[in-house]
């Protein structure tokens, strides 16, 4: 009965996703302009539109799933990769990589490993702090501190670096979906699949840890192992996305909460799938806005996600105070 209700909602989300994929592939225009007869438009499609759409889907899913995992692990609806400073970790390492010497995108593996390494390191910081803080709010503040601490280091590096490299880094920092080549997509897909399989194979511990770590332990779950798996996969999701698309804020925080309010469940399988769909929808939607306004104004991806995400989070906080149900 209830399962049926979730299925319907998942299907609605999927339909929404499909229509946005088509709209986005079409360059966010209502006029049908798929045309493979000329080589030009075929190249336009294959080299520019397709990778951009695929990147939006992969990045949106990754960041949203990472947010969901953080919220489940820390039992805190306001957790997310950017607010906990995990994205900052990626940024810092990418900054090291870009500005302190090596050229951006010279090798796919280098940038990915820089992104993942930074995310992993900062996830471990947060995990360490989470053992010692009593109030979850404190953890969020520590995450923000990590963020501003890293920003300062990045600024120091920026001051030392040449203009050209600084520009590369700054463009990356705005966040964008159009700097991924079609050849890089399989790599992102591979890491995404890897992290996703890791999580799916721990779906039972994940569904139990919803009750809190102590209760999960009393139900026979190996909590340390579960925590480790969650942190590793969050780092992969966040690190890869951040490396390729820049630090995308608010998606990881807003999307899982939106999904939870819509689905009203704690079933992690449903939340994972729905977060992936809605995350993709959200990022495609944001990118469609960018495409639509392209001729008038150039909006960085990060600005759009924040413009929509920040008011949503404020609304969420107010709702939490009124209903105390989040």
């Amino acid at each position, binding site marked *: 009965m209830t399962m049926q209700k979730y299925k319907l909602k998942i299907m609605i989300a999927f339909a929404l996703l499909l229509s946005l994929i088509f709209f986005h592939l079409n360059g966010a225009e209502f006029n049908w302009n798929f045309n493979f007869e000329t080589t030009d438009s075929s190249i336009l499609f294959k080299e520019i539109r397709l990778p951009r759409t695929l990147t939006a889907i992969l990045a949106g899913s990754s960041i949203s799933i990472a947010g969901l995992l953080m919220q489940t692990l820390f039992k805190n609806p306001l957790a997310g990769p950017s607010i906990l400073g995990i994205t900052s970790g990626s940024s810092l390492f990418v900054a090291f990589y870009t500005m302190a010497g090596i050229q951006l995108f010279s090798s796919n593996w280098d940038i990915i490993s820089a992104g993942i390494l930074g995310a992993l390191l900062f996830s471990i910081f947060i995990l360490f702090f989470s053992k010692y803080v009593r109030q979850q709010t404190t953890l969020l503040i520590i995450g923000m501190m990590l963020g501003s601490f890293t920003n300062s280091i990045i600024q120091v590096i920026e001051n030392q670096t040449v203009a050209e490299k600084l520009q590369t880094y700054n463009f990356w920092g705005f966040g964008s979906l159009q700097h991924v080549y079609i050849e890089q997509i399989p790599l992102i897909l591979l890491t995404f699949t890897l992290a996703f399989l890791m999580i799916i194979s721990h779906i039972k511990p994940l*569904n139990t840890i919803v009750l809190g770590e102590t209760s999960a*332990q009393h139900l*026979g779950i190996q909590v340390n192992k579960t925590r480790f798996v969650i942190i590793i996969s969050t780092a992969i999701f966040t690190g890869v996305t951040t490396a390729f698309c820049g630090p995308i804020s608010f998606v990881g925080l807003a999307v899982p909460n939106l999904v939870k309010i819509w689905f009203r469940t*704690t079933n992690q399988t449903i939340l994972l799938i729905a977060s992936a769909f809605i995350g993709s929808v959200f990022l495609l939607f944001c990118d469609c806005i960018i495409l639509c306004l392209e001729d008038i104004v150039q909006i960085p991806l990060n600005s759009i996600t924040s413009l929509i995400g920040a008011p949503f989070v404020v609304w969420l906080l107010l709702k939490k105070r009124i209903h105390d149900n989040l």
Partner: protein
Amino acid sequence: MITCNSLKVGYIDPILQCEQISFTTGELYCLIGKNGAGKSTFLKTLMGDIAPLSGKITIANRPLSLIEPNEKAKLIAFVPSKFDGIPFLTSYEFIAKGRIPYTNFFGNLSLKDKEIINEAVEFTKVGYLLDKETTLLSDGERQLISITRALAQDTPYILLDEPTSFLDPENKLKLFSLLSKISKSKNKLCLISTHDIEFSKLFCTNYLVISQKTKTITLEKFSNNSSNLDIYKKGFEEAYLFLTQRTDNPLDFG
């Protein structure tokens, strides 16, 4: 049967010890002692959350430290003093988590699991709460579904850490009576740490008393008509003195 042998419990320094105590199924035990005397630490040690500093605990003739986590979850269930509820988690889903140690790799409930859940729900009469979200329940209702979850976990032993602390007198009575019923009719061992001595006396005769002076746990029998003072004498010596010699003030209240 749970047996403790020359046990010392604590984190770094021992805060509590006992010579030899055995608990048997089918009985209700109340653990009493001052705040900070080590009731929770003792329960955590029995759950295997923290290792004893010395001594041995055996559960069903097996040393506790050698039992696999999943196996342990089929032997002992734990009910914390307060469950705050989890957003969007319904009572049924919460109770169903008790079946986790028995479910397959993906955690799907089998028909047998569902039967056991229904049986537990019927026993505690919480059927009317099943579709409600756990955050919307009262403290009393949440404690009831916590106990139902422990029943669904289908373990011979249930440990409860001050389950009555946040309840009104009526719910306290209800809970003790339910636990006494569980231990008798389901042949389980229920070990409850509590400060509600007057309520517990109505249902329980086995007391584990933590003495203030010696920091030792001893098993005492109190008949149903023994007075509070008899129990205070063992576990709350200062309160006993205060209540029996009201003229001077042995408690240094200042």
